[in-house]
Each structure stands twice: as C-alpha cells, then as structure tokens.
C-alpha cells in the first residue's frame, strides 16, 4: 500500500511548490476542517511503488493475452505518442472552431473511414465505450419507433449467447429483453426467432460473428424476418475484427451498429478502459445519432450539436466522448489503410483457425468442431472436469504459471466448461505453437497431478483469492485504524 510509505510532513510537493494561498474569503463553514488523508510520500517512493505494482500485471506488452471477445492485439506506440502531441493535449473541449480545425479534421475523417468500413450511412463517435454505444443504438431504435407513433414495441430480442451488456442496455432504454436460443451448430435458432417476433418487437441485438465464434450464415434471412415484423437490427461490434474489410454490417442488413475502437482499432484497454464505442446507422436512423458530431461545410470543419440535430437522442458525455481514444484509432486506421484493414480480418482468422486445429490435434474438444472459426473459438473442458475433476478455472489459473493470460472462461454461458480463445492477428506462429504446448502440458498435469493444477497458480504474487470473503466482509478502502 502506498499509505505504508506515508510519513506525516513528507512531501513530493516540489512539483507544486507554490505558497498556500489565503482562503479567508471562503466562509469557514464551507471549508474543509481536516486535510484529506492522502499519502504523504516522496516522488521516488511513488515512482517505485507504482512501477512495482505495474510489474504484478499481465499485459499485452508482456504476455500472450488470448482473452476471447476482447481483441487483445498489439497497441502501436505511435498511436499513443501522436495522440499525445502537446497541441492535442492542450486543446480545451470548448475551444472555438477556429482553434479546433486540426482536431476536427481527424474526427471527421475517422467518421468517414468507419462509415466506409462498416457500410453504414452516418457515424457518431461520441459513445465512451461499447456498452454506451449499445445504449445509444437501442435509444435510436426507440426514437425511431416513437417518432412513428409506434408505441406497442416493448421488446428487444437478444440471443442467449450475447454479452451481458446487451440485455442490460435494452433495459436502460426502457425495453424488456427477451432471449432467443442458439442452435446446436452455433447459429441462431431461426424457428424460435420466428416464434418470438411480433408487433411487440422493437429490434434484435446480434453479434456477427457471434459470441460462440462462428459467422451467422442465415443473417440475410434473419434481417428479412425482423424487418418484416417491423423491428430493427442492432449489430454489436464486439467481433468486428474478424470481418474488417471482408463483409460489412450495413450489407448484412443491420440498421445500427457500435464499434469497439479499443478492440478492432487497437486503442489500449488501459486496465479496464477507456474505450470508445462509436455508432453507425442506416439512413432512416441518421437523425437520431448522439451529438456532438464532426462535419465539414466545404471550407471548415464544424461541430453538429443539439441545435443542428434536434431529433438526436442527445448527449452521452459532457464533451465529445473519449477524444484521445478516437485520435489513437484514427492514427491506427491511417497506418493500416484499406489494405491493412482486411489483413486484420485475414490474419486474426488464420491465427484462430490454426490454433483451433492444433488444439484439436492435441486432443482438446472444440464446441463447434464442424464450423470454421472466426477470429476466436470455443473449447469445452467438460470431459476433463468430469473425468479428472480439473475444470476450466483450474486450466485457466495454471496457464498463468506458464506466462499466458487465461482466455475468457465460462462465457458464453451456454457452453459448459468453456474457454473462449482469441489469439488476434499480431501473435506470431511460434507463440501459438507455444500455447498449444502449454495446453498439452497442463492436460498432462491434470491427468497426473490434478491436485497441483487445482491449486494453481503457484508463481503469481498471490494464490487463489477468497472471493466469498471479499463480498461478505467488505473491505473497499484503506483506513488507518484497520491496519
């Protein structure tokens, strides 16, 4: 704890060596009586403490990180340094357009790039993350129905394999979420969909390729059915990386999409964010896009706000969303160019299919062996769990000992004992081969020393943690008197 280095009167305030100004014009009853209990440490103590903390993390820069559905690919350093140029960092969000042309040009061009690569008519960059993009998308679906006086539509359909954010976003827009089952081959159960569709259907939220790692082959038919019922189709861009430059959501029949720039456009995940979740729409939803948006009037770049776009679902963040993330994505897109975009899909798909094939050869069971993998795939360890008593969690924890971040575990919920594995395009063949060797080794250990695997990890800064205690005996903040 940084607090352990704290001593009363120790200061790193060389950085702010300004006299403590007089505050007597602020009435005493509005002032703070006791200083906030923040650490009092030297700059070096802080630097050493946080450097050491960083070393307790797995990250893309240090470890293979095949976390399915999260697209943990290389985050180019140029994106960070160019988005951090002094002119960009110093720009106040409310600076006038005369002092915003460089920044707005980047945003405008990013909107155009994203429109093109997704096949949508218009894009707004403002949502701050995928879930906020989902919220914006469903809110636009609702605005569309409301504008037509079509108030009977109260349900959003969501596949049972969907991310939890999908039903949660639907509820935040005042809808009921209704689940649609997935068929045995990984495609959506179209018969069940037909049963569920009706005058109460506002829309459906789909991820394609889906969260089970396969391309929804009957997508055109599904789009037809939903549109026929008067609903709209929402595309969750979580897996856009798999099809970038190959097939476009707009061409599949989707009315509204969000993209996760922190996945497909390689902006950093930052230990949990910030992300960016721009939304794209077809022509009929364009009036409802969230503001602000960047535009070009023929001579200058300008902002479009509530004034110019009165039907907008409104503003989702104080200013323009995660602007710095958008700049990073713009740099990435310019580095890749059009030829680099479809290479993303090609090599992420090549890596996934290669890894799947090698793991199947090594004796692991694929959840959908008859299907082509997209940029990710699912293994199920139900046999190991049943026969050896070593489950997916045990495999995942043991992987940490071998220096690999575990894939996504126990998601999607419909496949028992699953690992969702997404190697991404930036991993080399030898790293994939090494992963297969590690899986073989753990399988061998599970057969011969199951207890050891069940106790893993053994080499991390801590062993398995007591999650039950964490939730029961809440300790959410350091207090001097507790130590």
């Amino acid at each position, binding site marked *: 704890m940084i607090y352990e280095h704290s001593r009363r009167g120790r200061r790193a305030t060389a950085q702010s060596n300004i006299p403590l100004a007089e505050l007597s014009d602020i009435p005493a009853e509005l002032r703070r009586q006791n200083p906030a209990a923040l650490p009092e440490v030297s700059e070096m103590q802080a630097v050493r403490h946080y450097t050491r903390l960083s070393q307790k993390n797995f990250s893309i820069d240090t470890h293979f990180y095949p976390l399915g559905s999260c697209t943990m690919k290389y985050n180019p350093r140029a994106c960070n340094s160019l988005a951090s140029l002094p002119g960009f960092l110093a720009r106040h969000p409310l600076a006038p357009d005369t002092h915003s042309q460089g920044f707005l040009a980047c945003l405008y061009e990013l909107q155009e790039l994203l429109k093109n690569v997704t096949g949508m008519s218009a894009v707004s960059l403002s949502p701050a993350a995928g879930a906020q993009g989902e919220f914006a998308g469903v809110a636009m679906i609702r605005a569309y129905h409301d504008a037509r006086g079509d108030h009977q539509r109260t349900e959003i359909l969501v596949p049972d394999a969907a991310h939890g954010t999908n039903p949660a976003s639907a509820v935040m827009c005042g809808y009921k979420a209704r689940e649609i089952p997935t068929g045995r081959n990984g495609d959506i159960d179209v018969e069940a969909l037909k049963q569920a569709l009706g005058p109460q259907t506002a829309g459906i939220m789909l991820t394609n390729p889906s969260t089970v790692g396969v391309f929804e082959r009957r997508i055109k038919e599904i789009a037809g059915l939903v549109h026929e019922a008067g609903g709209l189709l929402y595309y969750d861009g979580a897996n856009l990386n798999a099809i970038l430059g190959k097939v476009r959501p707009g061409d599949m029949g989707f009315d509204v999409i969000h993209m996760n720039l922190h996945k497909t456009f390689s902006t950093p995940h930052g*230990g949990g964010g910030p992300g960016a979740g721009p939304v794209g729409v077809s022509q009929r939803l364009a009036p409802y896009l969230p503001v602000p948006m960047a535009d070009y009037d023929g001579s200058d770049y300008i902002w479009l706000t509530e004034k110019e776009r009165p039907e907008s679902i409104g503003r989702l963040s104080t200013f323009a969303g995660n602007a710095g993330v958008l700049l990073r994505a713009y740099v990435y897109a310019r580095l890749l160019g059009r030829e680099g975009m479809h290479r993303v899909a090609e090599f992420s798909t090549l890596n996934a299919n290669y890894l799947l094939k090698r793991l199947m050869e090594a004796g692991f069971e694929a959840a959908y062996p008859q299907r082509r993998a997209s940029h990710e795939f699912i293994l199920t360890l139900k046999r190991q769990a049943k026969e050896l008593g070593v489950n997916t969690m045990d495999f995942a924890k043991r992987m940490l000992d071998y220096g690999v971040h575990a894939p996504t575990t126990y998601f999607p919920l419909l496949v028992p004992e699953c690992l969702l594995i997404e190697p991404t395009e930036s991993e080399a063949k030898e790293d994939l081969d090494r992963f297969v060797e590690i899986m073989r080794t753990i399988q061998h250990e599970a057969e011969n020393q199951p207890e050891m695997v069940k106790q893993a990890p053994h080499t991390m800064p801590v062993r398995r943690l007591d999650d039950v205690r964490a939730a029961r005996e809440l300790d959410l903040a350091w207090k001097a008197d507790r130590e």
Partner: protein
Amino acid sequence: MPFIPHTEDDIRDMLGAIGVDSIDALFDEIPAELRCGELEAIPTGLPEMEVSRLMTARAREDGQPLCFIGAGAYDHHIPAAVWQLTTRGEFYTAYTPYQAEASQGTLQLLYEYQSMMTALTAMDVSNASLYDGASALAEAVLMAVRANRKSKSNRILLPRTLHPLYRRVVRSIVRNQGIELVEVAYEAGTGKIDRQALDAHAGEDFAALVIPQPNFFGVLEDVDQLTDWAQANAMLTIAVVNPLAMSILKPPGEWGAQGADICCGEGQPLGAPLASGGPYFGFLCCREKLVRQMPGRIIGKTVDLDGKPGYTLTLQAREQHIRRSKATSNICTNQGLMVTAATIHMAIMGGEGLQRMAAASHHNSMKLTEALSSLPGVEPLFDSPVFHERVIKLPIPAQDALRTLAAHNVLGGFDLGDDYPELENAVLVCATELRSDEEIEQYRSKLERVIASQVQTPCQLKPDW
C-alpha cells in the same frame, strides 16, 4: 505488413495445418453475395513517418491559445511522473482484472484509488470509475431512484446551477426509464440554488436532490442547509463536486447533520490533460449501506489460500456479466487508465499538494476577475464566494468579445448566453494555478482594447432587430 508478424513460410505452414489452400478459404462460411470489394474510399496505408508528419501538422493547427475557459475541464499542472508511469505497458495494455492473480498491480492500484477518493470526499465507498462526470451523475440518479425506499416517485430535483451539459446528458441517459427531472431556479443576486423555489417542493415526493459544489457559476452552495433540507423531505442527496476543490472545501460526507448519500463528479482535475474533453473519468462514492445499488466495478481486499492479503473484483452480482438484464447498469469497460493516472497524481501531490493547487487556482481566479473588473463596464455578476471560476458581465455582447479575443489567441471564457439567456453578456472565466500574472495581464489588456474598439464603433455590433 504493419503489426502482423507472419512470414510467407508461416502462412504456408499454417494453411497446410488447417488444410485449406488460401486465407480466403477461411471465409467460406460467409455468403459470397455479402462480401465487400476493395474499400476504395479508404486511403491506402501510410508509414509511421508520414502519419507522424500529418498529426504534427494537425496538432499545431489548433494553436495552443491562452486558455481562461473552465466550464467542466481545467488546465492544471500534471507532474511528469504521472503519465510516464501510467503509459507503462503493464498498465496501458492490460484489461479489466478478471484474472485477479495476474492483475494484482491494477487491482491494488484501484483499491488505493477507492481509498483516496473516500478520503477526499469523506464517503464510505467508491467504485472504480464511470465514463465521465456527467454520465456518473446519470448513474447516480438511477441509483438514487433504486435506493430511496421512502420515495415512490421517479422524480429528481436538478438545480439550474448544475452544469448545463450535465443536465442534458442526464436527460439523454435516464429519460427512457420514466424518470422525471424537475429543474430548480437560482437566485439572481447570489447565483445559488433559490431556497424559495426549493421550498415550493417541500413535502413533495422526490427520490433525490442534486447539489453541485462548486456550482456551474463557480459559486459555493450552502451545502449544509441544502443537505438537511433534502433529508427533512425524505430525499437522498447527490453531491456533484470538483474533486480538487474537496482538498479545501467541506467534503460531502460532512455536509449537514448526516452527510450526503451519494457523491459523484468529473475526475479530470486529478491528472487528466484537457485533451478535447476526454478521456476523463467519472467518480462515484456513496454511503456503505447503498453499495449494493452502486454501478460499476468495485475492488475488495481479501486473502489468498495462504492468508496473504490480495485484491479482487467484488460484489459482481450487481454487474451486467452476471445479472444481465437485472444489473445495476450496463457499464463494462470503464476509464481504468485515467484512474491509474489519478491515483499516481494524488499520491505524488498528497493532501497538501492538492490544497496548494486548489488554493492557488482560487487565488488566481480572484486576481483575474479583479483585473477584469477594473475595466469600465465589466463587473462580477454574483455576490457570493466562489472556488476557481466566476461569472463576469461585459459591456458588449459576449459572443463578439470572445470571438475577437480568440482571434488574438486568448480563449476568454465560456459564453453563458445560450444556456442562461436571461444573463446578458455574461462570461464564465477561470484561472487555474497555471495562469501567471503576465497572462492575466495579457487577458486584461486585450479585453480592454476589444471593449474600447467595440464601444467606440458601435456600427460593428450586430444589430439585434
């Protein structure tokens, strides 16, 4: 190929292992009629050197003017160590700490962050961040509606002294859940929440009262009385505060007889650069009894199999990946990296460093408004104590004055005309600890010339008939 390591040999071997003869064959499940062709409208890729040239030119184009705008984003000094550490790959390129054993760095840092935020706000618990100040307030409103068991209403009292952009964001986010936002007027003389307007709602059923401190005008609200009023009327109190100001102002946990119930705000003043408005981070703190209604990640301290202390995501049954449609919010990805910067920033500054920074900002803003008020026809609009922003009234249309100042590379403040049309020629100005006496003098002398030129040649003014 940028960021792809495959050699020709690798590709051949991998295709051979899969048993297909081309990469294209891997897309054979996608119906052929859906495949897109070359995306002609997307430019071809550029080498890093070229993109670097382009971005350098664009960044320079925006000019780095002298900035006296605040209005929710503040230009503060950030110690060099903050971002050098934050952009270490181990922080920058990790994700949500799902594998706790391999994420103790991020998890412990977030626990330290929660500890610092609760210390700063005098609240019991903090989450690990939301997107920004405005969306944090929207989540606080939803949380209050869920948490206030005494209230049967979905109504919230939202003062007009709250940031106008926050009011718009809250409206966009909560309106589809049938929540009604009722605005409360401000007092023309003081710029504070109008107590009479508030008293008109006494005894009515509202889930919560929102109290900004400082408010959008920079003015300090009478937080003790407002909190007590809300509690007397069975409403929860949602404090919206500037976290830097909390180093010198009474923290929400100590407001009134019992303290505020929920506290949120914009974390930007704690180590995030202006950067066109983001990424910043929203913080959200509350009393312990409300923690299960809180949205977002929360980190708990626990022990491992050997009894050694460790940190983990906790109370996950509130969250979308477990509870799906019954979650407290849809939030998944938050603003982790910005919180990393904020934590390191608070550790380096300490309570006293933040106090110095806050007090110097207060002091500079007072100097600025005194200097500007020495000009004929310029005067402060509200007669109330402020933190580090103040509303001034100009003798000429604010929009024209600000435009002319901007042409001279001074961003003179935020024009209140659009959001408060009743305030004539009013500008919200701010001077943080970074604004020097010379810069303040530059602003004063330029404004002097702008006023002189406009007053002398009224034909330049746009007639409003």
